[in-house]
């Protein structure tokens, strides 16, 4: 079979979508856990992240094969280099979500109010979804919008920290909420990185971070 860039792109994108499905699942578990403040999800989420990591490796493999066989240039070259980074970012996002479960297992959180982290999580997840969509659909506007949205996530993250610092909370809640908000903020950063990759893929220029 003749190596064909379109075929490789199809395979890459479908693998990236499978990864997206995995992080949607794990995101749902995290959301439910935060709402119901229940534990015991660590083994399951660990499994999901392992699966995501395997898929990340699969994307790398496809990209390396395409690089060897096609020796591509221009947008084809950029498609492969960005796909590798996007796969890494998605897999990283998966591990961040799992980290939230880890943090929950660490502290007793039944007394904590989780509304603000839940809302932060919701928006960050929306960013992740639209970042992957912008990448797969080559949607420059969507990518740029989500890069802008990152500022508001940062502000809300800082607001949560300020509230924790000034309010009257118990130590476990402060640690739990602070760490969780921090993890979600990092997750949004990775969604943002995917947006940057989309921008580079389409325009050929890298924007300054």
């Amino acid at each position, binding site marked *: 079979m003749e190596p064909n*860039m379109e075929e490789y792109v199809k395979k890459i994108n479908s693998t990236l979508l499978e990864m997206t499905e995995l992080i949607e699942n794990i995101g749902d578990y995290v959301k439910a856990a935060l709402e119901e403040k229940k534990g015991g999800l660590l083994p399951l989420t660990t499994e999901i992240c392992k699966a995501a990591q395997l898929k990340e490796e699969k994307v790398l493999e496809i990209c390396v094969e395409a690089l060897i066989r096609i*020796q*591509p*240039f*221009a*947008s*084809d*070259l*950029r498609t492969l280099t960005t796909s590798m980074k996007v796969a890494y970012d998605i897999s990283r996002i998966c591990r961040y979500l799992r980290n939230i479960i880890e943090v929950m297992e660490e502290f007793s959180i039944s007394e904590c109010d989780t509304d603000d982290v839940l809302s932060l999580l919701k928006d960050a997840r929306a960013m992740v979804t639209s970042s992957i969509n912008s990448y797969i659909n080559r949607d420059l506007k969507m990518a740029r919008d989500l890069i802008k949205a990152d500022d508001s996530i940062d502000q809300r993250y800082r607001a949560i920290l300020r509230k924790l610092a000034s309010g009257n909370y118990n130590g476990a809640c402060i640690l739990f909420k602070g760490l969780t908000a921090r993890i979600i903020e990092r997750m949004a950063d990775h969604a943002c990185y995917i947006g940057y990759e989309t921008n580079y893929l389409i*325009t*050929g*220029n890298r924007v300054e971070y």
Partner: protein
Amino acid sequence: MSSNKLKVEDLSAWFYEKQVLNRVSLEFPDKKVIAIIGPSGCGKTTFIRCLNRMHELTPGARVRGRVVLDGKDIYTEMDAMEVRRKIGMVFQKPNPFPNMSIYDNVVAGLKLMGIRDKALLDKVVESKLREVGLWDEVSDDLRRSGAQLSGGQQQRLCIARALATEPEVLLMDEPTSSLDPSSTAKIESLVRVLKNHATVIIITHNVQQAARVSDYTAFLYLGDLIEFGETKKIFESPKNPLTEKYVTGRFG
């Protein structure tokens, strides 16, 4: 701009009524390898043949515009033969002179211009053959006819011949298109060394080759210069959609 060896300004060329180059302007930096790429019939060969005044030898050929070598217009301020001694050329098919030995082929440009100093000629033969990596392969019998060598060796002999007159610019018209992969690899690594002495302008129909050997790349299409820039830029993120189509192999 002192770093630019060769400047092309508004260069157009015709065969009879057919225009094959359309107002190309370009500056070649000194001691770099510049690749010229583009689909067949885009005017690549005509373009570089305008740079050493070979184009005008073809019946019906016409040129307009300026080509400036170190500040001197090669069409109005220089004699065609002087231009060709300063701007050497290597062709698609190896073309050693069949009536001459390897030795005489290398120094043909010097000997036929009346240089008879045996010691000097010996020195040039050895140094140029070493430079193109042919010395060890042929030094045992330099009296052999150049036509007896393999295709790849013949092409390196032709490069040595072009280098013997110490050109400041070396034009190469698809120099590996008739060679096998290992000869091609040798010529490519030679090209990267040659830029220590001269500006090398190489036409190639193989975009991977252009990416491998060149510092800058120019893309020509239907006689127009579509894009010129650093090779990394042209192959990573070309500005023009035509260049993009060409380097990703989606042309026609």
